[in-house]
């Protein structure tokens, strides 16, 4: 109560100043509101906010809706696929598809194998691409451009082009052996025969170590762009303090690039997880058919097989359920790592 009355009115001399009149509360709140409401920029902004929000919602819907319908379909019973009244919401909720996919397609075994494979490959790829990207970004040497072009070319060669010779090379693996010219590699020269590497993790491990695996060109390129944004002064001061190049890389550069490395790791892990090309190529003769996760969509569990009218749609729903089962662990990991994904890329400073 008292505080209001004790506030002294502005000195009369000051209040006559025109600027004071304009800015010292002489305009009533009502006037201000009117000014705000009549200004076009205010309305343009508000309309843009609304428009933007609607666009975002729409795109989110487009992204999420196929998952939604597939999830709902996965709970449907067999009968629902021939029932014309059922379109989105299942009538007979059940978990048959999940149950038989998990039991008969040995989901957990496949998940364990895939997790091990993806983890090994992703770790190797992250480290290798980090190193190569650092080398390309921070060192000027003859052939730097050539190596960069090679990186882009490995990204651009479609895998199916190399499928056959890749399989041949890993069925009888040797280093630098060009089979078409009968060029023998060191392994055959020393031990007398080549090694069969298919049906094991080795083909993918070797490719990951060398940075020529799945989409590794992109990772190397991203890492290169990231390191270009890291100021040179950081390493120079480390060098001045007597740190070696590799030591500087491990102790200074790697800790700095952890968010970016998480991004690359997440890419590598999830793309290896869902990849069916290599798993089909290298694990074609595996002991059982569903050795890796992407295989579980290619076989229909025997208990779910039917021969009735809505078969095609039903089988399609079973495959989609398999897809959900494949994606589910990834989605859980993504929800935890998602903020690093944006953070990592934000700091990457990809310019030039």
């Amino acid at each position, binding site marked *: 109560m008292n505080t209001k009355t004790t506030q002294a009115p502005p000195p009369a001399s000051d209040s006559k100043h025109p600027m004071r009149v304009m800015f010292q509360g002489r305009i009533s709140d009502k006037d201000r509101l009117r000014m705000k409401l009549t200004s076009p920029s205010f309305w343009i902004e508000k309309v843009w906010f609304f428009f*933007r*929000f609607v*666009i*975002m919602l729409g*795109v989110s819907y*487009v*992204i999420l809706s196929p998952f939604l319908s597939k999830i709902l379909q996965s709970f449907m019973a067999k009968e629902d696929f021939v029932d014309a009244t059922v379109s989105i919401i299942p009538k007979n909720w059940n978990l048959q598809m999940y149950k038989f996919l998990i039991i008969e397609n040995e989901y957990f075994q496949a998940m364990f194998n895939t997790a091990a494979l993806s983890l090994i490959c992703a770790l190797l790829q992250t480290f290798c691409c980090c*190193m*190569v990207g650092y*080398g390309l970004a921070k*060192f000027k*040497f003859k052939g730097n451009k050539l190596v960069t072009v090679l990186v*882009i070319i490995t*990204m*651009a*060669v*479609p895998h*199916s*082009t*190399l*499928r056959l*010779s*890749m399989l041949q*090379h890993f069925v009888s693996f040797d*280093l*630098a052996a*060009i089979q*078409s010219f009968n*060029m023998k590699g060191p392994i055959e020269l020393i031990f007398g025969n080549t090694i069969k590497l298919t049906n094991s993790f080795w083909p993918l491990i*070797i*490719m990951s*170590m*060398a*940075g*020529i695996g799945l989409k590794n060109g*992109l990772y190397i390129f991203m890492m290169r762009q990231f390191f270009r944004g890291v100021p040179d002064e950081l390493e120079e001061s480390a060098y001045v303090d007597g740190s070696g*190049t590799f030591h500087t890389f491990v102790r200074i550069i790697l800790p700095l690039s952890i968010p970016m490395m998480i991004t690359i790791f997440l890419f590598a892990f*999830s793309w290896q997880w869902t990849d069916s*090309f290599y798993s089909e190529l290298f694990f074609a003769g595996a002991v059982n058919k569903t050795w890796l996760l992407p295989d579980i*969509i290619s076989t229909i569990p025997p208990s779910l097989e039917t021969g009735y009218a*809505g078969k*095609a749609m039903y*089988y*399609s729903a079973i*495959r989609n359920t398999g*897809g959900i089962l*494949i994606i589910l662990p990834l*989605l859980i990991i993504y*929800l935890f790592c*998602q*903020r690093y*994904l*944006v953070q990592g*890329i*934000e700091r*990457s*400073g*990809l*310019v*030039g």
Partner: protein
Amino acid sequence: MTNQVIPKRRHKPGGAALSTRKARQGWFFVLPFIIGILLVYAPIVIDSIWFSFNTLVKEIDPVTQVAYNVVKPAGFTYYREALQNEEFISTLLSGAGQLVLNVPAIVIFSLFIAVILNQKMLGRAAFRAIFFIPVILATGLMEAINLQDMLSGSIEGGIDTGAEGGGELISMMDIDMLFSNMKVGRELVTYVLGLVNRVYEIINDSGVQMLIFLAGLQSISPSIYEACQIEGATSWETFWKITFPMISPMILVNLIYTIIDSFTKEANVVMAFIERVHLIPRVHLATAMSWLYFLMVLLIVAAFAAIASSFVFYQKRD
């Protein structure tokens, strides 16, 4: 404690200069890749190219009656056959056409979304999380499922095939009516219609591009925007005079990435066609075809890169 003698810096007469040493260290860092390329990748590529110029013939030894494979040089037979295959040529052209139409759409769309995601808004974190789901998940898995559906569908000859596949979002008629009064030309209308119907595809293909653009936008210094604001530029002007030039290197990167990505994924029409040839099985022909395809896409990448790099603006560092 004796007085420690500070070792004199020895100058090795034969020691390498700093630049040479740095170059050597550079080679050390790219060594894994170089080794991989030389020892594993190059032999695979050479064999694959050689494969397309040769043919394997099964012959039976007249004495021992044992079958064995004989390699016979085929020269350009497979390439000639591929180029004379009308279906292949038409698929190649339609694939290239699709690419040329899709790529600008994906790049523009992802830039637009990245600009929006970069602004402060309600629920930005949630939107970001949703928008990057396709990056993680839609890498061929959904396509593989659809492919399986199509394969099994075509074998069973079921009625249900394609029931879900081509669900058009908006009927052609509606948009047709809308645009026919605007006199904008037939081609544009069909292009827009195609885009609207492929919106799902486009959104799912632009996840990585969005991330790259977002990173580029984040790296633009806020002080430039501040200066613009003080000078009284509208946000429209700011976009075209500041954001666009600053982001243009990323546009080039995304252009190249989008082309490469959309032509190497398995859902691509040409890839699907080559896959079919592979399964017939005409393996040598399929290999020749895919090398031709690779050449074509390399040309497209070079053409796009040449056009794009003429307007790319590189900010000089310091």
